[in-house]
């Protein structure tokens, strides 16, 4: 199973995402933002980092990279796409996911081990979990506060589009404690926390993050 990991200028957690894919049993494939070559991958991860320094709105420039046009086209046909942190911001900017990520309410970058609840265990990236399962993975961001209009937030909640929620404390002031959302078809998921940093006992607070990557191996087979 080939899982692409896109490197944009300023991507930082691309090596981590590739490692997580490998540890889950997939084959990570490095993809370059400036090409139009998806290299025949079965799914794509947009990793964390500070693409283009986040000097404009986070993710705004990367969302317009050449390869993103191909990602958007394939995602609309059902290819699984996961956006982590900066990758989530890119997916919102690219119009694949609703809402936006803004400056943390306390204005600080914050890195902590965060408890999350899996709200949807039937997406391409969360099927390895049980619904309402709680996991701990790192969160680290300066612009991770999820916002949407009250009407849109209500719609998303009603449609069950909140995939992951902060529990035991909200690290950035996200509305509704939203940590991650999914597309209508459950193939595209974006979240601010970093499951790829929780895949080894040696280096993570847990191995709870591995489930995102084992989920997609199953999902890609069934696609």
């Amino acid at each position, binding site marked *: 199973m080939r899982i692409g990991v896109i490197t944009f200028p300023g991507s930082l957690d691309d090596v981590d995402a590739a490692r997580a894919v490998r540890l889950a049993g997939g084959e990570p494939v490095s993809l370059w933002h400036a090409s139009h070559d998806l290299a025949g991958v079965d799914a794509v991860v947009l990793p964390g980092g500070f693409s283009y320094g986040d000097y404009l709105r986070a993710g705004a420039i990367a969302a317009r990279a050449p390869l993103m046009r191909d990602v958007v086209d394939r995602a609309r046909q059902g290819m699984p796409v996961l956006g982590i942190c900066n990758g989530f911001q890119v997916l919102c900017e690219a119009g694949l996911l609703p809402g936006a990520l803004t400056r943390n309410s306390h204005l*600080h970058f914050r890195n902590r081990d965060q408890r999350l609840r899996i709200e949807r265990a039937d997406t391409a990236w969360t099927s390895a979990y049980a619904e309402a399962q709680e996991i701990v993975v790192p969160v680290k961001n300066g612009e991770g506060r999820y916002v949407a209009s009250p009407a849109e937030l209500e719609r998303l909640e009603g449609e069950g589009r909140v995939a992951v929620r902060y529990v035991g404390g909200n690290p*950035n002031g996200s509305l509704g404690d939203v940590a991650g959302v999914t597309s209508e078809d459950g193939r595209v998921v974006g979240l601010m926390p970093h499951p790829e*940093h929780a895949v080894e006992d040696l280096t993570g607070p847990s191995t709870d993050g591995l489930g995102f990557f084992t989920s997609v191996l199953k999902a890609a087979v069934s696609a």
Partner: protein
Amino acid sequence: MSQIDTVEVAAKTPDDEQPWAELGLESDEYARIRDILGRRPTTAELAMYSVMWSEHCSYKSSKVHLRQFGDLPRSEALLVGIGENAGVVDVGDGYAVTFKVESHNHPSYVEPYQGAATGVGGIVRDILTMGARPVAVMDSLRFGRADAPDTARVLPGVVAGVGGYGNCLGLPNIGGELLFDECYAGNPLVNALCVGVMRHEDVRLARAEGVGNKVVLFGARTGGDGIGGVSVLASETFDEHGPAKRPSVQVGDPFTEKLLIEACLEIFAADLVTGIQDLGGAGLSCATSELASAGTGGMHVDLDRVPLRDSTLTPAEILMSESQERMCAIVEPAKVADFLAVCEKWDVLATVIGEVTDGDRLTVDWHGQRIVDVPPRTVAHEGPVYERPLRRPADLDDLRADDPAALPRPETPEELTAHWLAVLASPDGADKTWVTEQYDRYVRGNTVLAQPDDAGVVRIDEDTHRGIALALDGNARFARLDPYAGAQLNLAEAYRNVAVSGARPLAVTNCLNFGSPEEPEVMWQFAEAVRGLADACRDLGLPVTGGNVSLYNQTGDVAINPTPVIGVLGVHDDVRTRVPTGWRAEGETVLLLGETRPEFGGSAWASVVHGHLGGRPPAVDLAAERALGELLGALGREGLVGSAHDLADGGLAQALAESALRYGTGATLRVGDDPFTALFSESGARAVVTTTDPEAVRTTAEWAGVAVTELGTTGGDVLAVEGVGELPLDGLRAAWTATLPALFGTPEATVGTVPAGAVPSS
């Protein structure tokens, strides 16, 4: 444009007045420049000499002392020694590690965010220049009193700057220090460390060789920021009535630096450079003169080709600018196209600005006219050297006579508990989460241990599990009382911190922060600290791989306490055997390793409870440190201990509380008949370990010649100490974690309930 001050013009106008004093030069230094050139320098030449002969770049006051580090016995582990951008150490399996700590003190006071940010940027480029991929950073910070209004201005900016730059570069911050003292009120210290990893064959050096090879400037455009940063800012004391120095501070762009890192590593991998140097302090003046000086000597640069952010800059300003995120490479003509292609891929601007020439002159042209024609060695390596006068501080005898033995001691359990809480909740002893959660410690996925563990541990090979450990320590109270012993105690503490993680200590770096070298008493402190550090390195068998000196940390005639910050690098053959500091399991036996003497001079207890600094620092026993270090390494490798925590500031009291609070596991303990000394003494060569096999630990300790005292057993949610009391962990945690948020602001209700480092239950 006014007439260009060319070499020709300078030769014809020997009597023109020149602003050498404004540029920070002494009259005899200016005379020497005229001697070397046989004429007055041009404006551009004067600019180059002024920045390169600054204290910051030339080490003119410290050089005669620092030679002692070079005279240490040759270490087999040392691949590249002092003199390059950073030393390189063999860590086994063909891996080499380069690490260095550098100060950015003065800029961080003037403009905290950018000063600290560019401090990180600068040290990362030093590591990159050696051919290594930077893999982690650390920071050692000092501020004035925690409750002083100016600290509330400086600290949040510095922390945000260290985090903002390092996070955006994708480098985990794995540890450091945060300490407060009145003496840093006008002179905060911001010391940043970077460590990088490469294969032995990938080591790069900063020299320009091969006539006809091209000089390529790449990275950011050159602007007007940081002009004279090393001379008028970092090499002078602050003065209440002086002009604003904000224009001398550089502005950082971490995104460009990230691209520069990736471009450089790709350039190295394709073998496209023969020499490389970063542009930091003294900018292009430094890079060109050092590259030429370390190489065959000849180089020509056409300054018009330098891409500018501001077209009105004068040639002298271009040569002095400290705009960040720039590098200079020497490239064979046949490889220039490939070099430029890699830069283009990463959106890095790259320009050929000159070439290596025959002969031994560095020449620079501006609009076709010669404005610099100098022997580069005289700029870069043969600057002035001073044997500054030394004088033992007049107050030292009184200070040492003021023995803390005379201070009132806590006697009742209530007093002991109150003093324990006071030390733990003091700004120095308190939980540092407020700071460290602003730093990314996870990026790259190889961080095995990070703050608040004693050492940062990073995996460098995922297949073999080889890794490295790093610690930074700099107790300035000890150094104030005795700079010779103080430097040794700091080395010993960093050495212990690396050893408790289970690593084998291998090499030393340092950042020596002192007041003005023009004050004989400061210079005496400096000389003593260097001598102490060199002697201790010899005793411990560790090489000094390089370092940094920051002088003029002084406002008016008030100097900071001497602050030698020492970094120790260690090796883990297998990081899976690393030992954490926190207690995780119940029912483990708590053992104290090493001997406790009544030593309170310079202690946290004397400082926090009595506001006292006096007496003698704890005795230095390097043989005991070495024995303890070897024992800790053996215990780690054999898997005999569940945790290990070094004893330092705050003694056993601080260590026990930190170990218990890390994962919320208490203990029931006995500390003997004199709980005050047991808890608050700061005797060296000690650590607390926990184990399920105390007999095996005792046997190994006996072999190593280290005393073992059984303290009790882990478990429960209180720290119960016989004769002292029962301290519920909830209360301890509340006191420990409240201090910094109360001082610097609580990020309101969004603070969650998962305590830092809590073991997740999944």
